[in-house]
């Protein structure tokens, strides 16, 4: 029994616990946590990891996240399972947990321990007993309607109070109506009423996430529809655990997704294999007409998968191929097979060669200018998955079963690409990368960079972001790593608060050229302090590097500050492992280094004469009027 445990991921985690979780093993810990396949194992691993020390974890390069959980029942397992889910993705959860049934007090009292812990996200986990317990044991059908009405009002109060007390997110789950409860009502017509009120309550609960920007709602019913029970009667009765561990695991997976999304850690690119992944059979053996798609019954599963992938790409996920194949063959198949749902245009990068796949992933990351940690690898071969896991460890690897009918579930199950909210730019992204190909060919045709930039006919619009732009501004602040001067991350609420402060502002950068519109691709955060204008952050999407848009935007701001009567500009650069290429940005723009601190450098620019805008950019500015 012991021997087999040492070989298993859980056994390995036990060994690490006994060794006190040495820092140098933290990376392997992540791998083992990702390899756990069932709820019991995730729960056990989470309990083991209670002993992991946050300081050590942060030293090892991970992040931490403050998370509150309140509930009307014993919910401890969800904290342990959530610990596993988050550590598996590189985040150490700092929990604020209370005894059950304290949720009303914790959420309403401005001085509660919950609010003092300033949670970045709070899960308010409720089941039907949060309502039934308030009704007494001999409730009648009409009491349910009244009770649900009251409960909804209470949850809305929570949402309001929470918004006033803290800037974090508040997560509710819909309340499943259990069979036991429904069947206690003997009036079958009454049951329909009860079901309707219940469904209406859950629908109204979901509306809270449309009313309040900080509220998100998890659909519990939808999670229950997979192979998972609502509760175990004995656990419910003897330990007041009113949800099964399997359901808590499914909920924890959703909460982890929201945590990742709110940290801007959603993945950006799906890298797919071809043979027996996108189609049935082997292109090299079966030939272009031989691989299975609409021509065979089992080929349908691959078509189904391609449709699902296509849907991801229309929502901003980049798509790349890593296949051990002849490149010309692959391109020819993409052109000839009309039953391929995914066309050549859908792929931002096609790597077909005989090199190891880990190398292909690294190349894709360079070509698309995104981090290796933004890649998700999808391959039917266990060998290739292991090769990538070992040699490109920052990429995420999807575990696939052996039947293509199950591929779609595997693809979407872990929510790798989920964001709190998608922006206009996300829906246009695949189009944006397609026009990038046209730009590259123009670049190759022109002799000099100057001529290329002239021919692009670049326009840059600088404006004050409006309410419906704030989600995109927040997304840029969360997801931009390379051109991000101070890497101050802000969620949408924080962006709004920034704008609400006196003398504070944001300038959004929107750009287009002859090939298309890039959308909002950068922003400047600033505030005025007497005679000084501070640039608090400046960020620019990597898609539009090397066009001097940053120079145009900065110089426009300098000129505006000059006209406004400021004496000088102050700006900071905070180095991170990913933003070193812009370390000298302010020096290159004639700023003077006035302070070299351990964690940042400070620069000053005296406003004496006007700065010039690069000639190849047509500047359209409107921010001056509104500031």
């Amino acid at each position: 029994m012991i021997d087999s445990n040492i070989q298993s991921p859980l056994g390995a985690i036990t060994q690490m616990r006994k060794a006190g979780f040495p820092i140098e093993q933290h990376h392997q810990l992540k791998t083992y946590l990702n390899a756990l396949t069932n709820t019991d194992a995730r729960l056990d691993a989470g309990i083991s990891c209670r002993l992991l020390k946050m300081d050590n974890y942060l030293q090892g390069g991970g992040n931490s996240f403050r998370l509150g959980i309140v509930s009307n029942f014993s919910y401890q397992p969800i904290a342990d399972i959530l610990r596993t889910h988050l550590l598996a993705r590189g985040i150490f959860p700092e929990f604020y947990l209370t005894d059950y049934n304290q949720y009303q007090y914790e959420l309403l009292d401005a001085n509660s321990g919950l609010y003092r812990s300033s949670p970045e996200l709070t899960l308010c986990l409720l089941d039907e007993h949060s309502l039934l317990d308030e009704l007494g044991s001999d409730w009648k059908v009409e009491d349910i309607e009244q009770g649900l009405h009251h409960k909804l009002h209470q949850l809305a109060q929570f949402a309001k109070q929470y918004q006033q007390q803290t800037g974090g997110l508040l997560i509710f789950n819909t309340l499943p109506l259990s069979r036991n409860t429904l069947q206690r009502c003997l009036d079958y017509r009454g049951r329909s009423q009860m079901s309707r009120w219940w469904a209406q309550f859950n629908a109204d609960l979901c509306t809270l996430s449309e009313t309040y920007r900080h509220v998100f709602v998890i659909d519990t019913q939808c999670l229950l529809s997979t192979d998972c029970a609502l509760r175990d009667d004995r656990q419910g009765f003897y330990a007041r655990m009113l949800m099964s561990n399997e359901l808590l695991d499914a909920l924890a997976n959703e909460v982890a997704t929201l945590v990742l999304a709110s940290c801007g850690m959603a993945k950006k690119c799906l890298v797919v294999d071809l043979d027996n992944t996108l189609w049935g059979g082997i292109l090299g053996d079966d030939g272009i007409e031989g691989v299975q798609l609409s021509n065979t019954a089992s080929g349908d599963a691959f078509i189904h998968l391609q449709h699902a992938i296509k849907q991801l790409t229309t929502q901003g996920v980049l798509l790349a191929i890593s296949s051990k194949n002849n490149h010309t063959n692959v391109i020819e198949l993409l052109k000839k097979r009309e039953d391929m749902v995914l066309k050549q245009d859908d792929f931002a990068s096609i790597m077909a060669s005989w090199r190891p796949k880990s190398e292909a992933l690294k190349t894709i990351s360079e070509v698309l200018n995104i981090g290796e940690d933004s890649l998700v690898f999808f391959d039917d071969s266990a060998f290739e998955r292991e090769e990538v896991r070992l040699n490109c460890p920052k990429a995420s690897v999807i575990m696939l079963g052996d039947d293509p009918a199950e591929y779609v579930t595997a693809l979407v199950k872990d929510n790798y690409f989920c964001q709190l909210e998608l922006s206009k730019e996300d829906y246009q992204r695949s189009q944006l990368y397609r026009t990038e190909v046209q730009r590259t060919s123009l670049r190759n045709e022109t002799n000099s960079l100057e001529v290329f930039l002239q021919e692009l006919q670049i326009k840059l619009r600088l404006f004050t972001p409006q309410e419906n732009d704030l989600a995109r501004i927040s997304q840029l602040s969360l997801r931009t790593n390379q051109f991000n001067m101070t890497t101050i991350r802000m969620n949408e609420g924080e962006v709004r608060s920034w704008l609400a402060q006196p003398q504070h502002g944001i300038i959004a950068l929107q750009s287009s050229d002859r090939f298309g519109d890039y959308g909002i691709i950068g922003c400047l955060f600033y505030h005025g302090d007497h005679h000084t204008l501070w640039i608090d952050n400046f960020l620019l999407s990597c898609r539009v590097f090397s066009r001097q848009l940053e120079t145009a935007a900065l110089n426009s701001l300098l000129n505006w500050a000059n006209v406004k009567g400021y004496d000088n500009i102050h700006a900071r650069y905070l180095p991170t492992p990913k933003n070193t290429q812009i370390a000298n940005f302010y020096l290159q723009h004639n700023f003077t280094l006035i302070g070299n601190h351990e964690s940042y450098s400070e620069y000053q620019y005296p406003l004496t004469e006007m700065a010039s805008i690069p000639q190849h950019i047509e500047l359209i500015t409107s921010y001056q009027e509104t500031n």
Partner: protein
Amino acid sequence: MKCIAEFLDFINTAMIIDATDNELDLPLVELGYWDSINAMRLMSRLESSFGIRISMNDYLQATTLRQLYELTMRAMA
């Protein structure tokens, strides 16, 4: 499951503790993490791992690891 040593391995794995032979007769509450939630977790783990059904009354009366072992063996018989 053949012997109490094997049972101890099972308990250690399921409860994330490092109990030894010396602790077989200690009150369960003195073991790490012993609370109602974990007690229920262990019960369901015993039931699913050994394919048995344990009555709640019997389970509550077992107050040491040795008594839990004996209860499990009876249920498996």
